[in-house]
């Protein structure tokens, strides 16, 4: 019943907006009887660092997967870089970079081979791949490790390398699903410096995280709970609204409020 209403509203409201990198309306995904994402609406501006917070199972990954064209929504609308998730999934893939929770490089290939492979898959020319490889190795300071197996790199470097390979095709929007889980604090900081650089270059960064300190780095945040967005806004505003000193307090406040 409610789903029918959703799709009606979604159909009548025009979605195209040039300043929006991501635009989501009433997005829903069911797995059988379980609703993983429940009528979620938000939009992300170009160049924004948008944080996605929530406990495990809140629906963050499911949302990200729908936005990347990996999972079909049950209902609702979403457009990424102006492309529709239902009908233009392949165009979306040309314009996004995606880094999943799991480390997604081939550990049995060397650093150089990984870059070469993903470059090739994204359709870069041989020359472009060479340039990109040089650029990335410079940037990550990985020249000494270029011909070593990826498996032998420290986790923090692997994560930064994984991020870099998702940028090979120069995407406008980058989706990061818990990119820093299991990484030490120094590496996490380095990783976030990288994210800031990307945003400064006009990239849109969409990031999910568990870490509340990381949440503070975002321009805007949305907090998900049981498949719904319960709060959305810049970290400062949220802290003011809950009279909290840190995002940790905001988050705990919300969890308590919802439990009651």
């Amino acid at each position, binding site marked *: 019943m409610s789903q029918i209403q959703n799709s009606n509203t979604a159909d009548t409201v025009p979605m195209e907006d040039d300043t929006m990198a991501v635009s989501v309306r009433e997005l829903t995904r069911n797995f059988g009887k379980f609703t993983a994402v429940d009528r979620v609406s938000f939009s992300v501006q170009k160049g924004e660092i948008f944080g996605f917070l929530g406990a495990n199972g809140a629906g963050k990954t499911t949302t990200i997967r729908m936005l990347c064209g*990996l999972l079909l929504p049950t209902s609702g609308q979403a457009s990424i870089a102006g492309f529709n998730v239902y009908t233009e999934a392949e165009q979306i*893939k040309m314009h996004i970079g*995606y880094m*999943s929770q799991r480390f*997604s490089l081939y550990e*049995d290939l060397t650093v150089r081979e990984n870059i070469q*492979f*993903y470059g*090739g898959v994204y*359709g870069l020319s041989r020359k472009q791949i060479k340039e990109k490889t040089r650029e990335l190795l410079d940037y990550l300071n990985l020249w000494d490790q270029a011909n070593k197996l990826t498996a032998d790199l420290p986790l923090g470097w692997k994560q930064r390398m994984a991020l870099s390979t998702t940028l090979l095709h120069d995407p406008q929007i980058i989706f990061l699903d818990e990119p820093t889980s299991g990484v030490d604090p120094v590496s996490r900081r380095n990783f976030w410096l990288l994210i800031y650089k990307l945003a400064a270059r006009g990239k849109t960064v969409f990031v999910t995280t568990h870490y509340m300190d990381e949440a503070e780095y975002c321009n805007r945040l949305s907090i998900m709970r049981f498949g719904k967005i319960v709060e959305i806004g810049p970290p400062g505003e949220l802290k003011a609204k809950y009279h909290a000193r840190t995002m940790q307090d905001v988050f705990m406040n919300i969890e308590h409020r919802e439990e009651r």
Partner: protein
Amino acid sequence: MQRILYLIQKEFRQILREPAFLGLIFGAPLIQVLILGFAITTDVKNVPMIMVDQDHSQMSNRLVEAFSNTKSFHFLGQVGTAKEAVHLLDRNKIKLAVVIPPHFERDLKTGRQPRVQLLADGVDGNSAGVALSYANQIALKLQKQWFPRLPHAPGTVKEIHLTGIEARMLYNPSLESVNNIVPGILAVLVMLITSFLTGMTIVREKEIGTLEQLMVTPIRRGELILGKVIPLIIVGLLLFTIAIISAGLVFGLWMKGNILTLYGMSLLFMMTTLGMGIFASTLARNQQQSMFITWFLGIFAILLSGFFIPIENMPRVIQWITYLNPVRYFMIVIREIYLKGTALHYLWKEALEMTVFGGAMLTMATLRFHKRVG
């Protein structure tokens, strides 16, 4: 196209970097042909046996000699009485005893048909039967030598009568079983390796998360599948070649027919096995599941292919079912090409059937293989 090349390059880099993979590619065909070729055999060799000679004549000596000089039997010597021989059979020391009766030579010469007794251990009825027929052949051979030299028996046929067996003159198991089994092993090898590896290499990427990563790239479904499948076809043909060479070197069995016809037919057959592997990968969440699915499908396909059980021996209904089994056709094709050197234009029916099954399997698998998760 370029993307496919990068996928193939990546796939080979991974294969070459994995010693277990290399061992599988080069070791498996050699070991399988060796072990299975020797082990799966319906012929009987080195049957432990003794003889009881109660005649001690020139002719009975010749008979003993004949039995001691054959590969089929492992001649352990002579004992005095049939009773002792039975005792040895009971204690599982021997599988066969040949008892030559007294007056063997005299009876033979006078045309009175001496009765040589064969005592066989019937626990393994199959082997016993084969052993008995070997024994009979040895006796018949001797008899043929003796006949022309028997002075007073012109025109009459005399036999050494070996009790309780019928002579199967044309039965030559030692030749037939290896010839039949080895091409069969080649077929099974191609089938198992290509279907297993296809399923496993795809599911492995699912497990480590790289498949999801590939799915968010603009790579097309067809490119992804081709990039996975082409290296495995090359590996499959390489493995097939090693198996062919092993079979030739070990058993002296080289194909009589055209090698290109055989390779072409293998490619048609691989459409099915690769499709099966992709299909398994779409169902399985991890490599164990994928292996189980391919194994489950594979074991039926092998059993119903005529590999060791002749299809004519199966019940009628099962025989009909075997028509739906592509392995059946490849089994026919590989044996025909290997043993008879049958030319392509006699095998077009099998080729067509394999193409239809392979095409259907690949299409179904490809349709199930989405660039989405969940």
